[in-house]
């Protein structure tokens, strides 16, 4: 008996795909133009970001029309973020551990009838109106320097009692507004560097609603009652300045307090401070009651009050668009050149599984675009922010995670766009159609979106590939600020990764069509 011939064992599919990948990489790196183009793209991105950043200037103008480069004072909070810290407070200094208790018996407010961007002198005419985030309560903080750490318990206009500390942290207490016959009792207890907040309906039964650890809290701290009231957007999209007035009684401080007489301070409501306030506030005593009025906010800063707010990515979009166009050209030619020269027939003869060719090409061009954009953004983002600051513009401080997200997002945006355009090239087989189509579909919506006006524009950033630009979003948002986070105010309608997902959906669609077409069609 003779042994039957064993057919040759095919190599594992994975190994063969590696070979396809290496072949495609060899094709890419041996065309000089395709290697030079990404370098030029990254260079153009950095150069244009530099130029755009130099074209942005912010001035502070006095009433006499004299303008100098600079911006309003924006406090920086304990975590390095931009914060609003404007309020009126009446208090004293507390040394060592102690407890402050008060009863809020009234909380009312007025809203200016002039738009929020009008000069303070024009804001005098008011009507009744209390914003939901108007705050009246007690606070403990190392000092009244704007932006310093704090812990506070407060009654609010529409969010019930809250305990808040260090601008970002917020927890609810008893719900309901302050009204006649329904006072709110509030208490803060300081023990070492922990401040514990309580509230109560009657001053006898106390509920612990939260605690804050303020590391490095000095022995002597500022303690007192405060009132503040943020810009309201319920009546007008431009916002209206507001002022709240609260009545406190049964205010006691249990501990070593100096001086015994409490003094009033208006914090962060000067002409140089960015947050729009309706007067600096003040206080007076009526019998047992201490009546305090204040305007402003103690919360994270959002775009409100910072006209033309800049972020670390503000000057990037133009340079990025230029780089994207170069990437689109290279991605197109990476496949259409094969059709033009007839190389595609050799490629498909060598690798009959056409899907593998498409995926290998996508991996190569995606990786090239990713590295190009990552390098470009890593250089352009810090450079742009530096130039903006040097020109006197205010740039929202961004933590390392945000900067890394913008850089990684930009790189992914370029990679996904390159893969999508490669797929378009595979579908059309012609350079002209693929380049023009790539630019019109993947670049033009973003250009129209940044120039155009009207209600349709935000939809461009939801539905079209322009949604991918959401990865550049670096403006702060906060649930504790009743601000309209709309496109008109500079916020992208989608979250960064959701926006990139929309772009990826378009790319997946193009890749799917390309795979089907490649499979069905003759080369």
């Amino acid at each position, binding site marked *: 008996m003779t042994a039957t011939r064993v057919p040759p064992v095919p190599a594992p599919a994975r190994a063969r795909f590696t070979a396809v990948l290496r072949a495609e990489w060899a094709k890419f790196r041996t065309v000089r133009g395709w290697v030079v183009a990404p370098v030029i793209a990254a260079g153009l991105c950095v150069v244009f970001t530099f130029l*755009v950043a130099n*074209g942005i200037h912010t001035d502070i103008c006095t009433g006499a029309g004299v303008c100098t480069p600079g911006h309003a004072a924006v406090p920086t909070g304990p975590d390095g973020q931009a914060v609003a810290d404007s309020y009126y407070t009446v208090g004293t200094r507390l040394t060592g551990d102690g407890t402050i208790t008060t009863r809020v018996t009234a909380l009312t407010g007025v809203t200016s009838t002039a738009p929020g961007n009008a000069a303070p002198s024009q804001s005098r005419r008011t009507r009744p109106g209390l914003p939901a985030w108007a705050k009246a309560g007690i606070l403990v903080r190392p000092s009244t320097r704007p932006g310093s750490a704090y812990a506070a318990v407060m009654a609010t206009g529409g969010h019930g009692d809250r305990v808040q500390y260090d601008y970002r942290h917020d927890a609810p207490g008893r719900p309901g507004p302050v009204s006649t016959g329904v006072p709110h009792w509030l208490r803060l207890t300081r023990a070492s560097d922990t401040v514990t907040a309580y509230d109560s309906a009657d001053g006898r039964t106390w509920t612990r609603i939260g605690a804050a650890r303020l590391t490095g809290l000095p022995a002597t701290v500022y303690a007192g009652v405060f009132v503040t009231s943020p810009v309201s957007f319920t009546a007008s999209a431009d916002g209206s300045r507001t002022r709240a007035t609260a009545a406190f009684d049964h205010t006691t401080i249990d501990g070593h307090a100096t001086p015994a007489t409490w003094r009033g301070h208006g914090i962060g409501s000067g002409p140089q401070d960015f947050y729009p306030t309706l007067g600096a506030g003040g206080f007076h005593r009526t019998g047992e009651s201490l009546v305090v009025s204040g305007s402003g906010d103690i919360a994270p800063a959002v775009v409100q009050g910072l006209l033309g707010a800049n972020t670390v990515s503000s000057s990037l979009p*133009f340079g990025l668009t*230029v780089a994207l166009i170069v990437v689109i050209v290279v991605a197109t030619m990476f496949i259409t050149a094969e059709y033009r020269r007839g190389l595609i027939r050799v490629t498909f003869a060598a690798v009959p599984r056409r899907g593998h060719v498409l995926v290998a090409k996508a991996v190569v061009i995606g990786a090239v675009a990713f590295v190009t954009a990552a390098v470009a953004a890593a250089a352009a983002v810090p450079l742009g922010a530096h130039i903006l600051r040097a020109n006197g513009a205010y740039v929202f401080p961004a933590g390392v995670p945000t900067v890394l997200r913008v850089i990684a997002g930009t790189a992914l945006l370029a990679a996904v766009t390159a893969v999508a355009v490669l797929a378009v090239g595979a579908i059309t087989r012609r350079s002209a159609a693929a380049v*023009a189509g790539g*630019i*019109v579909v993947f*670049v*033009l919506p973003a*250009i129209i979106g940044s120039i155009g006006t009207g209600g349709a524009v935000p939809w461009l950033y939801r539905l079209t590939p322009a949604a991918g630009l959401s990865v550049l979003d670096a403006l702060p948002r906060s649930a504790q600020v009743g601000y309209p986070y709309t496109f008109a105010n500079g916020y992208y309608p989608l979250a960064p990764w959701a926006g990139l997902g929309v772009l990826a959906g378009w790319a997946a669609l193009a890749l799917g069509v390309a795979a089907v077409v490649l499979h069905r069609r003759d080369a």
Partner: protein
Amino acid sequence: MITALRAEWTKTRTTPGTAGLLIGAVVVTIAVSAGIAAATHVSAHGGPEDPTRLALTGVYLGQAVIAVLAVLTISEEYGTGMIRTSLAAVPRRLTLLTAKTLTTTALTLAAGVLAVAGCLLVGRLMLPAAGLDPAHGYPLISPGHGPTLRAAAGSVGYLVLIALLALGIATAIRDTAPSIAVVLGLLYLPPLLAQACTGALRRHIEQIAPMTAGLAVQATTHLRAQPIAPGPGLAVLAAWAAASLLLAALVLRRRDA
């Protein structure tokens, strides 16, 4: 010259893409205008509108198709090697370039007239529904109205000049994909750059960029709010087109095919 012209015409006529691109340019231009007209709702507190300009919005996208057509006229010859045959038949290179310029002008002129006429018709029929009717102080779009006629003729001229700009750039670059990218970048990027800048710099960019300067000719109202007047705006674009053709002539004469 006549022979060269006839040869160019035969090449253009028999290239499969030409007719499709010309029809595409007309359809895209009118479709975008119709879409914009359908999406427009003039509110009482919005700024004053310019119905003619609104009706001609399609030119913003139609010019891309025209540019692709013009680029392909020459870049495809380089792509296929046809250029060597062409230059062997017509050794005087400037004659070849002139013949290409004339055929491209004729084709774009025809497409432009159709597209712009379609846009105006769409505007006349659809814009009254958007609130731009005589009852609200906006007369119906009519070519008898002087500024409207200027905007319409200017838009056709704009498309022709864009085609010539693209032809010159493509002759200098020779490769299809980079040529299209450069032309579209030159058209669409300066407005984005202007948007990112402030004050006088923005105005200067809009005055010298081919698209923003050239399309100033579409304005029929509020001419003072435009970055540049209609006539000088179109002249700026003509200067761009002339410079691009001059560059093309220089490199074509000097360079080996």
